[in-house]
């Protein structure tokens, strides 16, 4: 039988020490769990804020915005959605756009997530695209409905040292991709004017309930 002869203490110590790098490697092996935990904890926090009836509308909006801005890399998403116009637009317009996008996005995301406050989110797994890029798969379950659960994926990046959300997909449709498509089309229709897009986004943010 294997291991029927007790191993010498030195051999045991050598085995333990050789295993230590694996145990301590941390990020490479534990990262998918870090991404999953990040999504699990924070999305639940967001849904709890949205369903907390003790908060006024203003308090709910402000708390949700605070949480969202701490979790989402808004600047990265904003620059992505500009597409090829990021290179040709003046830097001051790009910065103004990032700010306008931030206001629009918080209003839009609050409007999206408000529809799902009565639902439960369950993390079902994750896929690692590269060492700092993860797709966390979840299901949104509506306990009051016989509809099958909706699949919602969250894209998490860790290349800045801490996990941040950069995109969300509902039933396979990625929000940032859709936003890039429409912003690039809008800019194409408006001679590449980022300022016109900023004005439009600011109007939308007001319409969606976020003051500018």
């Amino acid at each position, binding site marked *: 039988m294997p291991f029927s002869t007790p191993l010498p203490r030195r051999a045991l110590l050598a085995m333990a020490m050789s295993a230590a790098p694996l145990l301590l490697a941390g990020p490479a092996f534990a990262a998918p769990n870090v991404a999953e935990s990040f999504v699990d904890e924070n999305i639940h926090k967001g849904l709890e804020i949205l369903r907390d009836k003790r908060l006024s509308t203003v308090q709910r909006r402000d708390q949700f915005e605070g949480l969202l801005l701490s979790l989402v890399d808004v600047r990265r998403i904003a620059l992505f959605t500009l597409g090829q116009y990021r290179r040709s637009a003046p830097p001051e317009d790009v910065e103004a756009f990032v700010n306008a996008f931030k206001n629009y996005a918080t209003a839009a995301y609050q409007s999206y997530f408000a529809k799902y406050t009565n639902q439960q989110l369950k993390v079902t797994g994750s896929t690692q695209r590269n060492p700092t890029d993860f797709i966390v798969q979840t299901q949104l379950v509506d306990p009051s409905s016989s509809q099958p659960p909706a699949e919602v994926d969250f894209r998490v990046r860790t290349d800045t040292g801490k996990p941040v959300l950069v995109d969300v997909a509902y039933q396979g449709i990625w929000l940032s991709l859709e936003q890039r498509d429409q912003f690039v*089309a809008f800019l194409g229709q408006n001679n590449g004017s980022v300022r016109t897009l900023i004005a439009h986004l600011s109007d939308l943010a007001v319409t969606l309930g976020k003051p500018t």
Partner: protein
Amino acid sequence: MTARGWTGRGKPGKSPRKMGVSKGMRRTWTGLLVGLVLATSLGGCATGPTSPEALAANDPFEQANRAALKRNAVIDKYFVIPTVGLYFLMVPEPGRRGVHNFLGNLSLPTIFVNDMLQGELSRAGQSAWRLFINSTVGLGGFLDPASKAGIPPHGEDFGQTLAVWGVGEGPYLVLPFIGPSNPRDATGMAADILIDPTNQLPFKQHIWWDAGRIYFTLLDLKGQTYETLQGIQRNSVDYYSSLRGLYRQMRAEQIRNGRKTAEDLPDF
């Protein structure tokens, strides 16, 4: 495909039924022709130059598509939405659920055929079981005991089959009444009319059956998608391109049958 009794010959003046031509056959070919005409007709309707962004987005008929979307919105506003509103008022939710289930059950033979054509044998088995269970225990399809038995619904159509076979989608189109599409999916829609066995059944009043089925399918679809589309419109800086992008992502997801392909995502 040969209709029952078709000989290719018939005495002048005889009705198609006496000639042995199935009404279903004529309808299917008409459907195919209409689909192809719709899919290609917009090529002659483009007005004004196409922007480089539209060409890059494979939308060379953007101007005509935008005009079609506006026309569809007018039809929706003055005809479809009021009709859907009336449907929601007059038919309670259990009834609407029954209609939805019945229509879904009618589509199952077409879904089964497309599952098989794509080599998705497991999904074909699910479709066959759903058809059997819902048609029998489900009272002709008005109930959905198959879902409760752990056999969930799924959709398939010939447009997806063509995609699986390697046919590209072609340029983006907005079809009258139907909305977002492309030549592959429009051809697929027409082919599904051919595949659907209920279109091959020769019975009297078939035209009323067809009209009723189209009408309730429209009500059901609009009822299910109205709020979502309103939300997209409210949140969009450009509803047209938002819909275009969403349609393409949605079709890609349908073609993948929900399988995840994270490697296709852009890096940012």
